[in-house]
């Protein structure tokens, strides 16, 4: 039996190792070890005050920090019985979408694209395809500028507080941003068309797909959890009843199951469950790419991320204009500190993110629970690797490894998130 080991899989966030045992041309076993050491966030928040939680949990992830901040704020607000203003909600959506622009542009161009043009990294791509790299940098930069405009800096928002915002951008910046985002939608459309030209293996996951959904919105900030296979919807407050987390021996990240089986979260499940709620240009691009309603091919996650870039541009331009017209205040609403428990969920770029906290009479945290998108995806990723590897085991070894790595990267895993 020969063992193929890919240590520190490149171009993903965090440290993971793939091990494949092959015997006589047959894949005997394949797994992904998460060697990223455990980070104990759920334990570290215990004993900290309610208003420090978002500062701490934002540091779970440098890429989707706005999501961790906003999700933990929503959980704390749920525990304290706080209702934020409509204006605060719009600002928070913009903050979250900033991380979509950053994350999707980085994942698509820096992490995924080199695979499809046969290069080890994005750096040589700058010489061979300068216009492509320029486009990537443009989208990522606007994402950074959006999180900076709303949150105060690209990583770890400053202004997002329990109950509202410490400050917000002036009208002129919002106006200018709306115009730039509208122009950027064209670049995002080109991204979707580019990724649609990359050939991906014809492979289907057996797992279910979960995402937040809402009746009147492409759910990002709030909604109910929906299942594609089970065709059910449940309030996020019940997440512990439908998502089960188990400790797995070879991984510092827990694995999740729903109804006893692994499942997928992320852009592909979101598009599958909410394609009819995409903004017009995003819906048009999806149609242009020949989308047939539902895809179970995890490699299509890349294309769905690109479609979401178009959606994010249109939607954020709209939100920026809405802020100019709607009035109202984002100043933190008044509230009293009290004991309670609460749950918050948002769609992070990589999938549904759940935070839950219990708080005592004095406002100090007594328990915390976080389920990140990658922690939910890892079980399904491994199941997909087990199903996919045998179909390509006859390929030359380098190509075989590349294809398996591509599958891993399509899930856009964030291993440091997964071992929070």
């Amino acid at each position, binding site marked *: 039996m020969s063992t193929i080991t890919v240590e520190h899989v490149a171009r993903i966030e965090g440290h993971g190792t793939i091990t494949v045992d092959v015997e006589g041309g047959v894949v005997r076993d394949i797994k992904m070890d998460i060697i990223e050491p*455990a980070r104990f966030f*759920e334990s570290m928040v215990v004993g900290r005050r309610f208003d420090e939680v978002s500062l701490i949990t934002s540091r779970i992830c440098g890429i989707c920090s706005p999501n961790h901040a906003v999700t933990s704020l929503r959980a704390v607000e749920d525990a304290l019985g706080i209702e934020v203003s409509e204006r605060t909600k719009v600002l928070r959506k913009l903050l979250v979408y900033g991380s979509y622009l950053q994350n999707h542009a980085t994942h698509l161009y820096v992490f995924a694209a080199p695979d499809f043009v046969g290069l080890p990294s994005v*750096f040589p791509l700058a010489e061979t395809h300068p216009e492509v790299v320029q486009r990537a940098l443009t989208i990522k930069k606007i994402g950074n500028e959006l999180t900076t405009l709303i949150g105060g800096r690209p990583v770890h928002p400053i202004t997002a507080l329990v109950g509202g915002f410490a400050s917000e951008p002036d009208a002129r910046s919002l106006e200018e941003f709306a115009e730039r985002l509208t122009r950027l939608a064209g670049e995002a459309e080109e991204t979707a068309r580019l990724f649609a030209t990359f050939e991906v293996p014809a492979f289907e996951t057996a797992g279910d797909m979960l995402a937040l959904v809402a009746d009147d919105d492409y759910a990002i900030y709030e909604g109910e959890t929906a299942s594609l296979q089970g065709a059910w919807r449940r309030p996020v407050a019940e997440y512990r009843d439908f998502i089960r987390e188990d400790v797995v021996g070879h991984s510092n990240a827990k694995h999740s199951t729903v109804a006893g089986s692994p499942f997928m979260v992320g852009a592909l499940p979101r598009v599958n469950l909410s394609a009819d709620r995409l903004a017009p240009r995003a819906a048009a691009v999806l149609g242009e790419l020949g989308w047939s309603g539902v895809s179970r091919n995890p490699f299509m996650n890349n294309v769905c991320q690109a479609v979401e870039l178009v959606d994010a541009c249109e939607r954020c331009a709209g939100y920026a204009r809405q802020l100019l017209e709607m009035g109202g205040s984002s100043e933190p609403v008044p509230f009293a500190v009290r004991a309670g428990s609460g749950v918050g969920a948002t769609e992070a770029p990589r999938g549904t993110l759940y935070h839950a906290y219990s708080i005592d009479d004095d406002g100090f945290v007594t328990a915390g629970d976080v389920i990140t998108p990658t922690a939910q995806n890892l079980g399904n990723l491994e199941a997909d690797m087990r199903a996919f590897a045998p179909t390509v085991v006859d390929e030359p070894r380098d190509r075989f490894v590349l294809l398996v790595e591509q599958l891993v990267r399509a899930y856009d895993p964030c291993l440091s998130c997964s071992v929070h």
Partner: protein
Amino acid sequence: MAPRVVVIGLASDFGCQVQMTNIEDHLLDVLGLIDLRYWQLASSGHLPDSYDVAIIEGAVTTDEHVALLERVRETAGVVIAIGACAFTGGIPALAALGEIDRHCAVVYGDTPPVAGVTRRTPGPVGSVIAVDYHVPGCPIDTDEFVRVLHRALQGLSDRPPQDPLCAVCKTMENVCFLERGQVCLGLVTRTGCGARCVTLGRPCTGCRGLSPEANLPAAAGVLESRGLDGAELVRLFDLYNAAREAVR
């Protein structure tokens, strides 16, 4: 010949490496000055046997990190620690406030995984090896990173700003949080951030570490004189600085 540079991530959220990719406007200039040999976040490949400059992000949380850092120190002429995790232990060092076994039980229950690492009490890079240059903050400021990198490449001295934040914040005409009855750590925190948080309406939380000029007892006295709880100073400062005893 351009110096050969490697970028290594220990226990962190990768936020400072993300800030490095956010150099955008300067990215190609910086790449022209260095020969980037390893950056797991951005490229396939392995840590080479030989290089000149090691940029390290993240806190030390395992024995494997210690072994890696010792090897890095033997190899690299210059070691740059970037971000609060690497400089002061940062948020990961909050786990140093309790027993690691207890954290493990809270998170994993009775059956912790055996995934090939040996945990230790978290600490900054400087608690294990000598560090030549520091970029403070959570996250780092990209412009400050570029400035420190230039200083390192030119062999200039490591010179992180020394004053407490208040010294700078006062000149920016921000309304002082202490006057509004809120605890702010600008009294004791190393400046250099341009008082970004205070300017945006949030008190300083100490992410850049203790200013060498800070006087903790005096600062606690200032809080008390405003009717605030002096003990809050240290309790809040622990957020990013729980491992400060371990700093060499």
